[in-house]
């Protein structure tokens, strides 16, 4: 049976993670610190939960990330997936009720940035575990909706 912990425990832990990021001894920008941690986490997460042999092409890969992966991490699927037809390997993944923004009205701007950095790192890590090098950035036009822009830098092995 899949292990669960309480949402509030993870949130309180995450607040502490953010505090550590903001005061890290090497002086890394907090968002970079959080993104790096999330990258490692996302990689390992995907390796644990995904049967990679079943992903046969880029379309299935991005759908897996939007559906199964995002659900494992954020308890829901991405709501929209758009691809940039002019540029292969560019996608916009939108979560209309991003969990990281559910209390956006009372969040400091910096904490919002760190929640987004975590999500971007998780996505980047998951993609890396699927042999895709990508950059992931987040755009929030209308919280709690959030768009994640994925720019793949390689061509993956299968078309």
């Amino acid at each position, binding site marked *: 049976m*899949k*292990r*669960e*912990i*309480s*949402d*509030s*425990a*993870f949130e*309180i*832990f*995450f*607040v*502490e*993670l953010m*505090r*550590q990021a903001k005061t*890290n*001894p*090497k002086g890394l920008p907090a968002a970079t*610190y959080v993104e*790096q*941690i*999330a*990258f*490692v*986490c996302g990689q*390992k*997460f995907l390796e*644990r*939960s995904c049967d990679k042999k079943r992903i046969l092409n880029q379309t299935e890969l991005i759908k897996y990330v939007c559906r199964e992966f995002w659900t*494992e*991490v954020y*308890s829901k699927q991405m709501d929209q997936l758009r691809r940039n037809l002019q540029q292969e390997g560019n996608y916009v993944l939108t979560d209309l009720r991003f969990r990281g923004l559910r209390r956006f009205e009372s969040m400091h701007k910096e904490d919002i940035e760190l929640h987004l950095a975590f999500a971007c790192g998780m996505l980047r890590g998951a993609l890396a575990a699927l042999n895709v090098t990508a950059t992931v950035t987040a755009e929030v036009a209308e919280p709690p909706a959030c768009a994640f822009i994925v720019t793949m830098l390689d061509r993956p092995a299968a078309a």
Partner: protein
Amino acid sequence: MAAKNYQQIGDLAFRKLDRVNGDLFCLTYGALVTQLVKDYENIEEVNKQLEKMGWNIGVRIIDEYFAKSGAGRCSDFKDAAEAMAKVGFKMFLGVNARTVNWNPTSTEFSLIIEDNPLADYVELPEAFARTMWYSNLLVGVIRGAFEMVQYRVEARFV
């Protein structure tokens, strides 16, 4: 006075709370520990930092405990320890814990956590196995939480 059934309270509280994938926690924790090793370059310092982070979590989580557990106040240290083990650990981490080996004056005990949720998938490299307290966050959480209910404690792994 009937003993409260902390086991039941803990189980119920855990079921009622929103939950997330446990892997998210242990994998984030693992990545954090890895980062801390890079940050501090000294395992003793990493242990200390984990304990400090845990303390910060402990002082905050106690409010959540009182708000959501339905367990009420504790009568003495032994009662508080029982509540922490059976209710606290269960409702937040979904794990069973118990207090054992109480000393005659009821001021010292051992806490046994069945199935440490932080240590899933973890293997410590040989170089760290003797010096790193990987789950030291929990030690800090315990110390911080107790301090908020007016008990100053020392906690350590054995």
